[in-house]
């Protein structure tokens, strides 16, 4: 009989898990990695969300249909695993009664959560899931403020072709080496890079799939060293960027052009100094861009305020997360209601400029109004080199040998 009692206790105890939200506050829910391999980027994400929420509240909150609301975010830690993410989305919606969700960090987690929000008709504005595959499922409640993954390194491939032409070389003679983590985001980057390389007729000499959480890519380095490609592309979140930068220097691998994702969030300049010199970095945003909005001011103002508050320069993950909150606030006000369907429609009609960039969603929910930027590490600084409209410096090619 003890067992029956125990099972009864399960019922009662779990029922006590639910609790509600207060009346004057709109509580957004978010399952973000606070532990596990995405914890660093998860922290950037949370800081970005908090920064926007606190500023909006300090300015008096948001007006929805004549009533003023404060914003709050209920966070859960998804432990960087998709299974947990999906579970938490369900928990936020069903148990905590959350009606609006902010995105998690990474494409994989977003992929796990999106079917849940879709099922319950809960609008989700996400800032850190860039995989193309998120926007081909016909999701109606998913909105992404960032550029999708195939755009990350396309500009680097185009740049390599341009540099070759300037030297009087046919881009088709270029050799490309690529190393991509085996996860939804990086595999998408790979698809984009290979498509672009094919367009120029480049030869792909290395095409490696790397294990998750990668801390060693010696086999790739050995191949790159032997095959001497003209362009080396790496995508493996922060850890991949750090590992590639470190091992290229350690193993004395020289490639005239190296392009990566996540080098700013990996802080390759701070960690590896000279070894990072000349590396190209794809980024969603840079503080030197000329966008602005009423809440934060310019991109540079955001960077300054963020640094004062958190003690480090904001990587783009933080900026886009802050922008996601702004988009929600804007949609609430335009919808004039907290009805989920109305907010969804308002989100779909978003057309605004934020400090992070222009935001306008196509019918699949991805932002089509904002281009990617390409940084290059020059003298220990990240300088925007493409697109030309915002270029702070000319690209250094080939990169210097150390």
């Amino acid at each position, binding site marked *: *009989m*003890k*067992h*029956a009692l*125990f*099972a*009864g206790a*399960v*019922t009662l*105890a*779990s*029922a006590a*898990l*639910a609790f509600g939200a207060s009346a004057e506050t709109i509580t957004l829910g978010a399952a973000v990695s*606070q*532990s596990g391999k995405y914890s660093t980027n998860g922290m950037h994400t949370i800081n970005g969300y908090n920064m926007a929420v606190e500023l909006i509240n300090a300015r008096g909150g948001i007006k929805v249909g004549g009533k003023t609301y404060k914003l709050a975010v209920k966070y*859960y*830690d998804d432990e960087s*695993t*998709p*299974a947990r993410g*999906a*579970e938490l989305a*369900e*928990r936020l919606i*069903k*148990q905590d009664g959350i009606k609006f969700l902010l995105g998690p960090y990474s494409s*994989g987690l977003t*992929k*796990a959560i999106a*079917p*849940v929000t879709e099922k319950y008709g809960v609008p989700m504005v996400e800032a850190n899931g860039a*995989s*193309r*595959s998120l926007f*081909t*499922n*016909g999701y109606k409640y998913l909105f992404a403020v960032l550029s999708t993954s195939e755009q990350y390194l396309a500009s680097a491939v185009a740049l390599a072709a341009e540099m070759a032409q300037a030297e009087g070389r046919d881009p088709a003679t270029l050799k490309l080496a690529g190393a991509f*983590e*085996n*996860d*939804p985001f*990086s*595999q*998408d980057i790979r*698809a984009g890079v290979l498509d672009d390389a094919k367009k120029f007729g480049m030869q792909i000499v290395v095409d490696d*799939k790397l*294990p*998750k959480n990668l801390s060693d890519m010696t086999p790739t380095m050995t191949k790159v060293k032997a095959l001497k490609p003209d362009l080396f592309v790496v995508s493996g979140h922060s850890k991949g960027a750090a590992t590639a930068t470190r091992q290229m220097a350690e193993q004395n691998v020289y490639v005239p052009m190296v392009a990566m994702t996540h080098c700013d969030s990996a802080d390759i300049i701070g960690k590896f100094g000279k070894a990072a010199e000349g590396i190209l970095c794809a980024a969603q945003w840079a503080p030197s861009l000329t966008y602005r909005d009423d809440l934060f001011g310019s991109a540079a103002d955001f960077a300054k305020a963020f640094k004062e508050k958190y003690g480090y320069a904001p990587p783009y993950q933080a900026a886009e997360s802050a922008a996601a909150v702004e988009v929600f606030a804007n949609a609430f006000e335009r919808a004039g209601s907290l009805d989920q369907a109305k907010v969804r429609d308002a989100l779909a009609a978003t057309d605004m400029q934020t400090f992070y960039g222009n935001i306008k969603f196509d019918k699949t929910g991805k932002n089509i109004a904002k281009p990617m930027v390409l940084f290059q590490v020059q003298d220990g600084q990240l300088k925007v080199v493409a697109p030309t409209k915002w270029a702070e410096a000319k690209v250094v090619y080939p990169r210097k040998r150390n």
Partner: protein
Amino acid sequence: MAKTSPMQWIAALAFLAVAIAAPFFMPNNMSQLVDLMVFILIALSWDMLGGQMGYNSFGNILFFGIGMYLVASTQVWMGGYELAEYNSAKGGNLESFTVTAPIFVQSLIIGLLAAAILNFVIGLIVGSQLLQTRGHYFAVGTLGLGVAAGEFAGTMDFLGGGSGMNFIQPPDGVNLTQLLYFLGLGVVAIFFVFLTWLHRTRFGFVMNAIRDNEDKAEAMGLPTGRVKTFAWAIAAAFAAIAGGLYGAGKNFIDPTEVAFSLPTVGVWMLLMPLMGGKGTLWGPILGAVMFQLFKEFFWTYLFGWQRVALGLLIVIIVVFFPNGLMGGLKAISSRLSGKSGKGEAA
């Protein structure tokens, strides 16, 4: 195993009654309840070898993951779609891959059956080789299985590779979590009755004999090799069903983080029998309930420290109740009634 006392049947029926009623009392906790059924299944399945036979396997996650992929694939096939096409729909349109409600339910059930049968066979094949090792060698040998399978699945493009695979979206009119929960409960009931029966057969006695002294059992002419292999195959079949249910509930398969996830489910499946009392019929069930309950509780009330709290709890249980909760309960009850608790171990 001693005869099943009426007490135990009453407990089982009470458990069943609570389990059937649970979804109506806590409709908002359905996904946790589905997880609980999955956990009970894998705990019981792990305990067949780890508890009853003394073979500690770290590799049962292999069957769990294969089962998950199989159920997802069966649903795609029976929906009339090409698997490779479905998974390459990263650039296509998953929205167009729809199935009707009857097909969805049928394909789920057939997928679970197929997963059970296929993993039974895989269990026979893998087991016939691996079970020739013992003790630490067996444990370490099985450790590699799940890791290898995860990496392997990550290279299979027709399964979505490292980008993972989504389950087909349930059509309108299908309450997925409720469906999964009752399927899970049904399988748990079948498994429980089956195990109760099994432990009264010669097969069950041989399993325990292997745990107590394999050399002696062999010297007595017992078919130890055959029993070990079949026991593992049966465990594999149920682990596969658990995997299928879990994946369908999560809706998304990542090769290394959902399907063949050694650090989470792969470890939990042996923690639960340890907590509840391994080598007993109720221990793994109790362990799974306790584990899920504490996991969610710590999670809600000790946010940020949930893993630490869970870890501490496990240490406390292992130190103070080396035979799990069941062992602790038995010791207490036998002290109270003044009897020795021996002879009840199985």
